[in-house]
């Protein structure tokens, strides 16, 4: 092995990059990973402090344009329904602030075009990904229960379901009253001690960080093992472009190191795992005379088909306390409405997930009620609200896209990003229906009032589809093995690879894709 030229160079140390690096390293590959962020200083995790709510609104804010650290680049959002991308530049990537809801896609998600004339089919099937879901559940420590009749059979997750609390029992009662299918939520939050990490103690509000590492962020799951296996991780490494050789093969990248000096790293293969926004940004920044519209973009699909899921929240208010200070994000969830129903005025479907309640400051800011009624309103809602999260299958559309923003540069003069998103009519109808079902659930569970966050609240928690995989090189960026159609030696594996998004939180699928991509890369290591 050439010490300066590893087998694989990975860009991005988030959910995908961590899983892919670990998998390759475990097979004996030499891997270098470049991450623009740094390790999270665990002393700064908000929930290690009494004022965690305030910290979460300031330096821990999930919006990069608000954090505005030197490792962040600006993201400006437009379109008729602008979204607010939540993303972290850090070891662990956006898992740093995630809720760890670990769903598998359904078999039908891979064939939405064939079945429902929706989006595009995937070039792989559920069966291709299932073994990697199994691996990911073991490696991240998923808590859940086998036997859900709304999905294919699978091995039991390594850990039992997380504690449900009174609100979990409440949602279960609601589902039962309605006669819907439901199941305890699979979470990458360890319900028992697991591989040296201490079990969840129900601190709630997972997005504000988990000081005890029960939340399976990629920096505490895959990375420690990958580093033990010999993988090298360089932090504060800001990649500015992918390098090609004279034959047009990807052979490395140029990046600015932690001291701001330009460096070059070469490798036999380059894998971009920078997420639904970071990946198209790097491809577009890598434009050259031979790739004037951006690297791997002969299809014109780089940055297009930006999907964010049809997401919103419905909040019920209950007379009995809801223990909103405790528990994992999710509790009980339903795929009753997941598949296309010909009686609907939309195709595809959504989940209905019973979650927890809000915290004091957030409750006060939501109502913004000032003056004499402030305390009364707070007392009425705080610890009496519980939310229902709905997530639906968003349509991939070319006009929804990510582009470079040369008007807002990062600290190295590299362009920021603009996103543009306009919700399709199908997505709008689906979300309206989902709000209706979530409202039904709240009432069945005993709510005395219900409010919702609208059809398009702009939640940018899931950033998908912007360098999608496909069999047709004219309509996709990478093939079924994550190889760029246009550029030998270049691979892409992350949320941007997903041709459609399904109707569930995508972190589990993103990591399963990355694990599978690692195997394909390793199996093809002797190919050209």
């Amino acid at each position, binding site marked *: 092995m050439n010490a300066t030229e590893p087998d694989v160079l990975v860009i991005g140390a988030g959910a995908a990059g961590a899983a892919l690096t670990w998998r390759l390293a475990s097979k004996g590959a030499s891997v270098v990973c470049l991450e623009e962020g740094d390790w999270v200083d665990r002393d700064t995790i908000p929930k290690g402090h009494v004022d965690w*709510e305030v910290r979460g609104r300031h330096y821990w804010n999930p919006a990069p344009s608000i954090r505005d650290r030197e490792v962040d680049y600006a993201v400006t959002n437009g379109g008729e*329904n*602008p979204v607010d991308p939540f993303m972290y530049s850090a070891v662990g990537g956006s898992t740093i602030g995630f809720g760890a809801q670990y769903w598998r896609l359904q078999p039908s998600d891979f064939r939405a075009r064939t079945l429902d004339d929706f989006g595009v089919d995937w070039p792989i099937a559920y069966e291709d990904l299932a073994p990697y879901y199994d691996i990911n559940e073991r490696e991240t420590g998923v808590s859940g229960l086998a036997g859900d009749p709304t999905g*294919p059979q699978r091995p039991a997750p390594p850990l039992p379901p997380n504690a449900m609390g009174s609100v979990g029992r409440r949602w279960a009662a609601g589902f039962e009253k309605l006669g819907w299918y439901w199941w305890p939520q699979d979470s990458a939050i360890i319900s028992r001690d697991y591989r040296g990490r201490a079990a969840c103690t129900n601190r709630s509000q997972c997005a504000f960080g988990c000081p005890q590492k029960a939340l399976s962020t990629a920096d505490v799951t895959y990375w420690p093992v990958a580093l033990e296996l010999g993988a090298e991780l360089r932090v504060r490494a800001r990649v500015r472009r992918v390098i090609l050789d004279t034959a047009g093969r990807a052979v490395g990248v140029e990046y600015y190191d932690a001291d701001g000096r330009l460096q070059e790293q070469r490798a036999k293969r380059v894998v971009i795992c920078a997420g639904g926004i970071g990946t198209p940004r790097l491809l577009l920044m890598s434009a050259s005379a031979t790739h004037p519209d951006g690297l791997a973009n002969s299809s014109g699909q780089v940055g297009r088909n930006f999907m964010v899921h049809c997401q919103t929240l419905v909040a019920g208010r209950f007379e009995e306390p809801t223990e909103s200070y405790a528990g994992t994000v999710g509790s009980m969830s339903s795929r009753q409405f997941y598949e296309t129903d010909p009686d609907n005025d939309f195709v595809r479907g959504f989940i209905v997930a019973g979650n927890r309640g809000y915290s*004091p400051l957030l409750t006060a800011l*939501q109502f*913004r009620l000032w003056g004499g009624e402030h305390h009364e309103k707070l007392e009425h809602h705080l610890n009496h609200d519980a939310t229902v999260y709905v997530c639906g299958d968003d349509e991939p559309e070319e006009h929804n896209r990510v582009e470079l923003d040369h008007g807002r540069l990062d600290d190295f003069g590299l362009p920021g990003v603009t996103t543009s998103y306009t919700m399709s009519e199908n997505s709008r109808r689906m979300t309206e229906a989902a709000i209706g079902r979530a409202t039904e659930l709240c009432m069945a569970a005993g709510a005395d009032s219900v409010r919702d966050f609208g*059809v398009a609240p702009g939640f940018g928690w899931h950033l998908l589809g912007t360098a999608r995989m496909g069999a047709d090189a004219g309509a996709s960026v990478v093939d079924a093995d994550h190889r760029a159609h246009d550029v030998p030696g270049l691979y892409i594996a992350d949320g941007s690879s997903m041709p459609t998004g399904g109707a569930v939180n995508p972190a589990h699928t993103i990591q399963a894709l990355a694990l599978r991509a690692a195997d394909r890369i390793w199996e093809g290591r002797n190919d050209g």
Partner: protein
Amino acid sequence: MAFDRTKPPGEATLAQTPEAAYGLEFGKTYVAPEDERPAVSLNPDQGRVLAAWADRLIPAGDGWPGAAEVGAVTYADNVASRSPLLRAMLLRAVDLVEREALGRHGEGFAGCTDEQRAALLGELEGDEDDGPLFDLILELIFEGYYRAAPVLEMVEKRTGFRVMAPVEGVEIEPFDESLLGRVKQLPRRWREVAA
């Protein structure tokens, strides 16, 4: 542009001016409790105006402390002082309500009646141009209030929200698999697809 999260929940909207996008400054303005200092940007007169403003936003009553007495004004001053934009907005907001109070009532804002103060703030809140000034002050005062120890004590006492649970953890009811008795008997519900 940034998201204007100061409006009630609903369709996402974008802030159209730098002041309306003040939230973009928040990432760099955190002040730890141990780092708080006496007023940085506000002179004593301005401090009195903001204290009256804060107590109109969150007044004392029914056992709850008012915003000013728990240090929300110092907090707002300290946070705003970490950003040129926020500092300018804070000072403009305070001077604006003071000027309006004097012009309309011949009294400084702090000397106005509760009703007069509420009316002035209500007008500012609804003002198309200067509304963001009100929004910023509200957010900062709310933040300062809900991190103050006496307030957190009252939160727990009056709502049952255990404020230390997110920091220290808490036991809750474990999952009860017997609840799934009906669902386990239901037929399969997902579409099988040829691979």
